[in-house]
């Protein structure tokens, strides 16, 4: 089990955020750079990194760290914070 939160790392790198950014501060509302073009690139990034395809209704609920984490969990991808024993 990795200690690192891969999704948090990915989002921090993707949006060039300070390394100590908290998950709750990562959302479309909080980040002006998160526009519709960035959204397309982010979905591509998540698909490439986690080797998954999203369904259309999932695509519409990827507006924050928490929502993305939930979508990944629905795909069977569990990050360190959501489960202690995956």
């Amino acid at each position, binding site marked *: 089990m990795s200690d690192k939160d891969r999704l948090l790392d*990915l989002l921090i*790198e*993707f949006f060039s955020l300070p390394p100590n950014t908290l998950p709750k501060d990562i959302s479309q509302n909080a980040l002006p750079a998160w526009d*519709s*073009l960035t*959204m*397309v*690139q982010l*979905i*591509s*990034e998540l*698909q*490439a*990194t986690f080797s998954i*395809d*999203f369904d*259309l209704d999932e*695509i519409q609920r990827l507006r924050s760290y928490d929502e993305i984490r939930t979508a990944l969990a629905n795909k069977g991808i569990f990050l360190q914070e959501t489960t202690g024993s995956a």
Partner: protein
Amino acid sequence: MLNFRQWIHRFPDRQKAAVTAAVESASIAKVRHALRLLEELNAEQRGPALEVELLSTYNLEPILPILQLAISCLPSRAHVRLAPLDNIEGHIAQAGSAPMRGHPNARMIMWRLEELLPEALYPLSHGFPERLATRLDQLLERVERVVSLHQRNASGVPLFLSTIPLPVHFSNPVFAAQHSVGMFASVARVNQKVYEVACHNNGVHVLDVASWAAFEGRGQADVVLEFLARQPLSPKGQVAFALFVARSLRLLITPRRKVLALDLDNTLWGGVVGEDGVDNLKLGHDFPGNVYLRIQRELLELRHSGVLLVLLSKNNEGDVREAFASLADMVLKWEDFAVRRIDWNHKHENLRAAAGELGLGLDSFVFLDDSDYEREQIRQLMPEVLILNESSDPLHILRSLWETDAFDSLSVSEEDRQRHHDYAVRQSRDVKAHRNDLEEFLKSLEMTATIEEVGPRNLERVITMLGKTNQFNVTTRRHSRAQVQAMLECPSSVALALRLRDKFGDQGIVAVLLAVASNDPAALVVDSFLVSCRALGRGVENVLWAALLRRVHRQRVRRLEAEYVATSKNSVVSDLYDRLGLQRIEHNSSLTRYLMEPVVPAEDPPWITSENGTNER
């Protein structure tokens, strides 16, 4: 990926690693990181400026950083700008008339059926076939109009016009194939028009997205990104597409390589002519000779496209001429090579001489050779030369010929087709010896030679070598197993084999030396001394010879006798014993006899570590 690795081979390690990670992961974050690192390079490292304008009917904005990175890797100081989406004619007209607006170095038009003729995806809803046929004709006219508009407004700017790929997302492919205005035929007719207008307009080239997509398969498409943003490519597809676009632009800034210098044995045919004999070479219509036949066909096509072929072979010229003359399936003829260097010199010396003969720089050369040793030698001593292949497998060699971009060309002129004839072979110039460089190279191979007694463990290999080796073989005595065993039983005889390991792996037993008693109890006669052709030029003979001298010195032998028996194949060793410091005592055209008295020990060459095998006496 082979080509991509070659594009970036001069980037510093940090940039190389970042760019490679970006391309392998298809991650936009890694792409941006790599682009930032490339900006740290100086102008020379970054390459020439290259401004590219993309006009597209689908949305390339999300993949702009990937396109920018791929084109930067050529390398170039790339600046990619996107025209407004799906406004091709409007943009060309407006850009052309805007005063002071700098023209790009290249303009690319990328379009597809989904926007150009969406009705073709639902033909029965749109008046199939008559009305669709009319719409198709209008589209064909539009293709011509776009090109003439560009030629009027931006004449001199190279235009890359894309073909349209077959749509990936549609139903009823069986019906789509059944009619001359069916969807598949519509795609084919648009593309035929693209090929024709490119052919008839100077400076207009085809960006064959249709062939690219067919080659990549469905994996390049992504239906979610298509619906979300009219961006049709999957993450992997984005990278592959960007590399494909970059390769198409590469010829604008990088000259085509002009010369292919290639090996002969195990490259143009299977086998070694000097060892296996002409009759046993593999070349023909059956496996595996058909692979070599295909290699030759590809090479002949290259020569007709203006690439000069240079033959570099360690062989006796007589053997090679005989093979060219008598092998029925040879596609390449003796005269197809602008320069032929068939001798026992180092290949880097011969390559340098060929460059002098042709009056071309080493950066015009590509090198093809099945031997790891020869490729490594050229890689280290002549970094400007592009090494075509990465392994000795003939199928890999063929693939490298198929996949390389070193000989890409947008067109083949009459001059290209005649180039071969213009290079009459000129006076060969002096070959400068680069002894120090060569020694450094040989050291880098990390060679270890193990001296073994000939015995049960290696007897098979020794007998095979005695039976087969023709070139580095001073007496060419084909001893039988019984004869060798009889020699081994005699206590005063010395029978040594040399096993070679280098950084490529264990090369096995590559040299054998047999010395037997003479009438004089204080003397030994060298009966056989041979080295496998794959270990020539590395100094293993000196190691084996030094081992013999150490041994006979211990046995209190005072006198060594040796002879060279000339054959049609072994001229490479005609002066071997002279080089080893023996004295000639008798010489005629077929036999030279040598003597060493007293026996003086010799040094191993400094680039080979020599050790004794466990079974040395």
